[in-house]
């Protein structure tokens, strides 16, 4: 039996729709829940559409939950970490791909080895360093330990390796030094990988919880994930505010993913096809 292409397409869309529904439903419930009154949240059958949206939960999260401050702090720290990781990864990745220097392989392996060490193992030593530098309760303490990453250097090395040697030769003839070649040629060519790295860095930095909790105690420097946990209530009558906080904390990530979707997928597949 042959099925027509149209039917197969329809079937495919049906399956995708069902899967999308499964993935999106919890998100939908979170958003709806943040707009309900507490007693609607516990009603049976559940309320699935806010006929009379209650935005008060958001203002409560913003003011009582100090989400204004927390979101700002997360933005600052995330920007520092993302930018820092991009700069260090681009420079290191380029060096490993394009330059010749003694012990290159060894150093590269050491870089890779740092990827095998879970962050939790280094927490205590990092904390000691940060405290010794008097960076407890500062943006520096929150961001500096994460400014370089072995994964980033590895990812961008792979991207830079794909640049044909001829291109490098041509650029040299044109009088390009390494820095000029990096900025004008290599970085634009590696854009998908760089975008992917940026998104990963952003996600990781934004979602940090334990480290910020350990190096801060001043509410003026704490980040949104801590704020969310403070807001997190096990009391039924306040869950709408917790949900509002969840939406606020997730919003920047959603926007980012929508903006970078294309690059993200391209960046990932680039690495997959040619290693």
């Amino acid at each position, binding site marked *: 039996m042959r099925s027509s292409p149209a039917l197969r397409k329809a079937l495919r869309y049906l399956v995708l729709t069902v899967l999308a529904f499964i993935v999106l439903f919890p998100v939908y419930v979170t958003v709806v829940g943040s707009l309900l009154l507490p007693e609607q949240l516990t009603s049976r059958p559940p309320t699935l559409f806010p006929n009379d949206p209650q935005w008060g939960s958001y203002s409560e999260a913003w003011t009582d939950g100090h989400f204004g401050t927390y979101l700002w702090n997360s933005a600052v720290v995330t920007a520092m970490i993302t930018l820092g990781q991009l700069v260090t990864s681009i420079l290191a990745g380029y060096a490993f791909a394009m330059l010749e220097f003694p012990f290159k392989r060894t150093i590269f392996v050491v870089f890779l080895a740092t990827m095998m060490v*879970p962050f939790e193992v280094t927490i*205590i030593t990092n904390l000691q360093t940060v405290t010794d530098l008097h960076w*407890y309760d500062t943006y520096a303490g929150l961001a500096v330990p994460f400014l370089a990453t072995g994964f980033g250097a590895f990812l961008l090395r792979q991207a830079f390796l794909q640049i044909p040697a001829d291109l490098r030769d041509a650029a040299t003839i044109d009088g390009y030094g390494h820095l000029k070649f990096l900025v004008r040629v290599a970085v634009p060519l590696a854009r998908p990988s760089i975008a992917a790295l940026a998104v990963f860095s952003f996600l990781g930095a934004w979602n940090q919880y334990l480290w910020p909790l350990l190096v801060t105690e001043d509410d003026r420097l704490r980040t949104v994930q801590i704020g969310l946990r403070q807001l997190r209530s096990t*009391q039924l009558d306040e869950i709408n505010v917790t949900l509002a906080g969840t939406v606020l904390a997730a919003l920047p990530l959603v926007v980012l993913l929508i903006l970078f979707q294309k690059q993200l997928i391209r960046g990932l597949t680039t690495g997959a096809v040619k290693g």
Partner: protein
Amino acid sequence: MRMRTSMVSSWRPRSFTAVALVAALLTATAACGGGGSDDDASPGDGGGEGSIPDCPLDALDEATGPVEITMWHTMGRANEEALVSLTDAFNASQEKVRVKLVNNTSYDDQQDKYRAGLSTGDLPDVALMQDVYQQQMVDTQTVLPAQSCMEEDTGFDEGDFVPRTLEYYRIGSVQWGLPFNVSNPVLYYDKAAFRQAGLDPEAPPVSFDDVRAAAQAVKDAGFPTGMSLKVDSWHFEQFLALQDGELVDNGNGREERATAAAFDSDEGREVFAFLGGLVADGLATPSPRTGPSQFDNILGIGSHNHAMTIDSSAALGTITEVLGSGQYADVELGVAPLPGRTADGGVTVGGAALYISADEPEKQAAAWEYIAYLTSPETQSKWAAATGYIPVRTSAVDLPEVTARWEEIPGFRVAYDQLVEGADTTATGGAVIGDFESVRAAIEEALNRMYLEDGDPAAALTEAADAATAAIESYNERL
């Protein structure tokens, strides 16, 4: 729920974090010798022996200008508001001490932060730590025992405390922390459903047999089941204490450091047989302690799935609000003491205690000043009324805030009454265990096996005891 759930949010072994931090704790304490104030005490015995350091109460008078101290806590929103307003009032009431509050979001994460701070010195001056962390706090060697200051402070009225609230935080003869927020589990039931089932709504079940009979009657009246049981080690511990059964050896870890589980006993078997029997006979259904379904045991009363459940007394405020919101108009909430108490038994306390972690004399004195304020009858009365916790002072019960609250919602009284009733023994004092989380994980695994896989109660209990003993030994070896 209000406090129980937040304090128990995750004590299942949490991968790297927990392991790494425990390892760090042990190296750190070994390396820096504590750096705390009680090097005289010998915690190797479990914290109850040896001389204790002095509490420098005079240091506060000698200090120039106000002494600033930091207090770590984990109170969720509504309770945090109450704590903040009490602390603001304290700061405004005197010139010597300024308290800064730091909210570390959950008992477990705060414990992680405390352990990490052992190596860097980033510790608070006052720490509000969950009940089960008592032995670990002692083992950090950073705590100035409250005992020292109680002996020094002539105005301190130890006799006014509810005895069992103090007993929980005392090892040997040393009071390590002072109780601040206290709760215990109670029986919640629907009086309307009881009437429907031909039961006397004003005579809630008292013994295990009563519970079975009531659950049977409710089920016979057409309810899907009689009762909902949370898979919660804390509830098992409480039932055990009601039988005067100890959780671990060496006087529940109070005479000497515990070395093995002691709950694989007649008392333990009786509790497991009771719980397992209810579920096996369809008279009760288990419900999860954490996660999205953690309120099912409460909401199930509203939706007439069952008529009884057990939960923290601190949840009563929330339950009253939710059930009173109008959509469960036919539910008439009753609150009763935890059933099954024998003559020598009683409930233990749950909650958290205040520890002095400051190491400078004037900060230690300031910390004590604040702790004495937080545990005073007046503060406890306001605190209990605002949060639903049990006041730790007997005289707080006659103060206007508590009287008014208890008049409004009489169920709040039940938790206090059952805490002053019964016998004060090492069993009802509660257990002191270094790695309490693993012991609880072992018990909950056994409960799950018994409930969900029709496991034999006695066998499940023995397995839990073996796992608990292994965890206790492992902790002791690492010290």
